[in-house]
């Protein structure tokens, strides 16, 4: 079974962490993944940096720009990850924009992911319909789960459609925004979390965007299977470096 599905079957709330591959240093990718697993993270989104990340706020934009300057490319990332399954067991997802995958060749990209042991992809600018019509069979052939986003503006009808095409989890964007850490969730957001929770979707939901600390993580996971932290972790790496990952994760998971 795909590792993502196995993980989703566990009876616990999941913490997923996003980071940008090749940041802060080009060769930090593997050790960051290993550290995250060691400290109790359930799932990792490895960001393949892109020159024009439309859905990202300043923190992830900056880390992407720096990672590209550091020399990160699709090929370099695949090379760094080639032995990752010798040491790491938790689900690994590559998150990136469509153009670099399109240039690599979607099938070649998926094939490589399978070889390495990548379990899924998140591609914010590959729309559900295009995926469904052109790429779904390729993803399935290589056992990859494609994860789709929903937002507070997504209609119930469309959520049902996305649920019908999804095979892992649904990435619930917490508010109408680009990525970036927020301090807390207001009534509007909790109403949205409740609305989705009541829809009884086939796929579990994991909430992302704006989760930054123990409080927001706990709040989000009251309504969903898990939560994803991205910008706050990248900021932490910028400020405190790669040696204090343990401290960051333990603060999130403290209860």
């Amino acid at each position: 079974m795909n590792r993502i599905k196995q993980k989703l079957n566990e009876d616990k709330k999941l913490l997923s962490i996003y980071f940008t591959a090749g940041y802060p240093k080009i060769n930090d990718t593997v050790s960051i993944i290993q550290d995250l697993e060691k400290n109790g993270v359930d799932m990792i989104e490895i960001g393949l940096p892109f020159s024009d990340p439309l859905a990202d706020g300043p923190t992830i934009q900056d880390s992407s720009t720096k990672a590209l300057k550091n020399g990160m490319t699709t090929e370099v990332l695949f090379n760094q990850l080639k032995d990752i399954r010798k040491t790491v067991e938790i689900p690994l997802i590559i998150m990136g924009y469509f153009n670099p995958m399109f240039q690599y060749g979607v099938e070649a990209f998926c094939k490589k992911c399978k070889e390495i042991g990548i379990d899924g992809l998140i591609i914010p600018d590959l729309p559900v319909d295009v995926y469904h019509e052109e790429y779904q069979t390729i993803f399935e052939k290589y056992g990859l789960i494609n994860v789709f986003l929903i937002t507070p503006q997504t209609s119930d009808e469309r959520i049902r459609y996305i649920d019908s095409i999804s095979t892992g989890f649904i990435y619930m964007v917490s508010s109408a925004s680009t990525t970036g850490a927020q301090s807390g969730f207001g009534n509007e957001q909790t109403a949205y979390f409740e609305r989705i929770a009541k829809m009884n979707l086939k796929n579990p939901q994991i909430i992302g965007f704006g989760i930054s600390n123990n409080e927001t993580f706990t709040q989000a996971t009251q309504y969903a299977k898990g939560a994803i932290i991205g910008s706050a972790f990248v900021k932490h790496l910028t400020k405190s470096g790669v040696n204090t990952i343990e401290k960051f994760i333990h603060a999130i998971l403290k209860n």
Partner: protein
Amino acid sequence: MNYNVNEKGYYGEFGGAFIPEMLYPNVEELRQKYLKVMAEPEFQKEFNQLLKDYVGRPSPLYFAKRLSEKYNTKIYLKREDLNHTGAHKINNTIGQILMAKRLGKTRIIAETGAGQHGVATATVCALMGLECIVYMGEIDIARQAPNVARMKMLGAKVVPALSGSRTLKDATNEAIRDWINNPVNTHYIIGSAIGPHPYPDMVTRFQAVISEEIKWQLKEQEGRENPDYVVACIGGGSNAAGTYYHYLHNPDVGIIAVEAAGLGVDSGESAATSVLGKEGIIHGCKTLLMQTKDGQITEPYSISAGLDYPGVGPMHAHLAKTRRAEFMAITDEDAMNAGLELCKLEGIIPAIESSHALAIFEQRTFKQDDVIVVSLSGRGDKDLQNYIEYFKI
């Protein structure tokens, strides 16, 4: 061969709507409504009235006698430079502001490179009393100071794009991010025939007034609706799309698309997307795109800020691929000289973007009785500083 958009939003293999889910409701609403809204008699009436009384349309189709004599052919200039605000950009912003009002939007955002589209957007926002935010690369803000001042006088807020290369591409990224963050009250007025479907088609339809007028104006002057060639410069491709639109399916009319070669197509400092680009995705559409072999978008270069874009509208990618259009690339130097030549021969100071289209006559010969219509997309006031420095005037 169909050169218009199909029902799925594609021109051949180019186009589509490669947008994050956050933008889906807005883009989908626009997709479902734009044709219906544009077909409403009330919309048409208001649009045409404003084009006439506010923009000053129809813009003249001017027979450039001395230029024609020099190149021994018949050259007409479609005078978009005489529009209010000085370029064709206003045709689109008038259409889109009326669209935004019908969609109930109260806040307008736009991106701009040279500042022409920013000024045209600020202008229609002032006209309609709507809030206006224009994203502009930090570098462009510095090199297009007069247009920044114009936007501010018109009441717009100009926000510097500080990411990436800090030019048009990055301003577009920032505008898209703003739209993601403000999905309910905001309409994004894209300034060229680019972006996710339905933008390229909507912008093209608003600019199509250019070729609609050329047809009857040429009939009056030459006794025929069809020129032998229509010519336009291409940044994202909105003035070109409007100039070609009513001739796309007419095989008697040749289409010439002029891109900016910058310092030369192979110099590494160029914006000739049809030559240097490969199929890829930028700002929500699949098109020809300048990029590294890894799919990272690269920095274009042109002396003209309006042509300094690493992609090209999907319609033009299709015209290039099918060879319906002949693409030419013009260097900074040739464009600047052609601009100065128009000043001397016809008493018209063109925008540097438009000068690229004029420069083809040095590179390509036409028959003596060929009738060629060139889109003079904008006037050169905004470029005076550039001309002054270049020619040490």
